[in-house]
């Protein structure tokens, strides 16, 4: 269970290699309730791999992650119950309607009967999916598909929300909607979002981690990070830190 400091996610020296390639080379951090952690890095830096290890999809080569006090390796079921996860590209079962899809995920989360219906309806309302709830997922636009998958992630009101590039490929209006949803939930949850859109970090994150070539190169508030550069711009800091690392 969460300790006194309300640490919801604790990542301990996670490492992952695929054959000879070291994708993640020792990543450690903590996220508490009320925090929105931005996970930044160039493509291929190891953001998705790290998230996949925290959510229990990929087994780490070494290290582990505790979610709500449960070890994702030794107690995966209880750890996964604490997590709402929006994978990259927002996958969904194309032949199912939005309602059927959410009912399915709710059922796997252990809800049934009227509670399940309530949960599904609430998630549909929270994500403004009323207009498309009876449409099959394959017929939805990218924005709606993203929101259906988002609805699936918040349906069980998880303590921890992990989102892999939640605004990738959305138009400015849709991005705005997603950011609003994140802000609305920020106080009650521990949120990790990966992104390479720097303005997003300034807009929604309370802390940012910059990762390059599988290692954390910075871990601070967006303001403190900005102060690291002479120009006071986040993209400047990002470039300096990640290019240095690659050189």
């Amino acid at each position, binding site marked *: 269970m969460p300790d006194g400091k309300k640490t919801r996610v604790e990542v301990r020296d996670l490492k992952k290699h695929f054959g000879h390639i070291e994708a993640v080379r020792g990543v450690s951090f903590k996220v508490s309730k009320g925090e929105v952690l931005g996970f930044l890095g160039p493509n291929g830096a190891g953001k998705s791999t790290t998230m996949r290890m925290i959510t229990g999809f990929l087994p780490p080569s070494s290290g582990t992650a505790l979610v709500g006090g449960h070890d994702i390796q030794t107690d995966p*079921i209880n750890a996964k119950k604490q997590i709402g996860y929006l*994978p990259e590209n927002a996958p969904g*079962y194309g032949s199912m309607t939005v309602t059927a899809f959410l009912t*399915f995920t709710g059922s*796997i989360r252990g809800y049934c009967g009227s509670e399940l219906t309530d949960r599904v309806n609430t998630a549909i309302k929270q994500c403004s999916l009323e207009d498309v709830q009876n449409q099959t997922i394959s017929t939805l636009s990218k924005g709606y598909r993203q929101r259906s*998958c988002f609805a699936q992630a918040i349906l069980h009101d998880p303590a921890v929300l992990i989102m892999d590039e939640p605004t990738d490929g959305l138009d400015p209006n849709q991005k705005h909607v997603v950011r609003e949803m994140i802000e609305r939930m920020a106080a009650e949850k521990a949120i990790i979002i990966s992104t390479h859109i720097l303005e997003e970090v300034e807009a929604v994150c309370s802390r940012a981690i910059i990762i390059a070539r599988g290692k954390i190169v910075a871990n601070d508030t967006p303001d403190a990070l900005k102060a690291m550069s002479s120009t006071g711009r986040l993209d400047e800091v990002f470039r300096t830190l990640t290019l240095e690392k690659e050189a």
Partner: protein
Amino acid sequence: MTRAHNTLTIFKREFKSYFESPVAYVFLVVFLILIGFLTFSANRFYERGIADLEPFFFWHPWVYLLLVPAATMGLWAEEHRTGTIELLFTMPITMTEAILGKFLAAWLFMVTATALTIPVIVPTVCILGDPDLTIIASGYIGSFLLAGACVSIGMLTSSFTRNQVISFVLSLLICLLLLLCGFDPVTSWFTGWAPQWIVNGIASLSLLPHYDSMHKGLFDLADVTYYASAIAFMIVATHLILNNRKS
């Protein structure tokens, strides 16, 4: 309790998904037409003048050979292709529950297809004469078990790849080999030069002899055990492959 619930949830989704597109109905119609044609025309069901289902059950393995891979090719390949596998395995369920749910759904789908022949073929043969109904029952049970074994093979090959066509071809190939190594014309070719124990060894691996004895009315627990072990083996292999592909 929850384990069974999770398996049931996966099972329901998978089984329903067959009927979410017209493909399932086309599949059932093709299955029934094919088996009807082979029984009544190719095997001269009426002309034989014997009131049993020998010419009907004879064709089941060969129809399964063609159609089971089509019914199972999407089980895991589609999850890999669309990325929903990442959703599925970050839910609080175990891999075994997911595999069992999917296997049972595909099996029930094949059993449904085969069972749809009962209202036509059984009354027909009863009108024509006085068949031994226990032999017919044994034949159907044998056919269901054979379908289960083919489905488990199809599920395994579907876990190899994200490409459904590759899965189809592979499972067709494996099923074909497992059928042919017990098919009389093939085994008699072996008896020409190989010692008897080798011929028996190869034939006992085959899906065919166990089914043959069942639809001839020899209901032996050893045959049931054979199919149960074949299915269990394929389920364990699927588990290994899926685990391996994740890391």
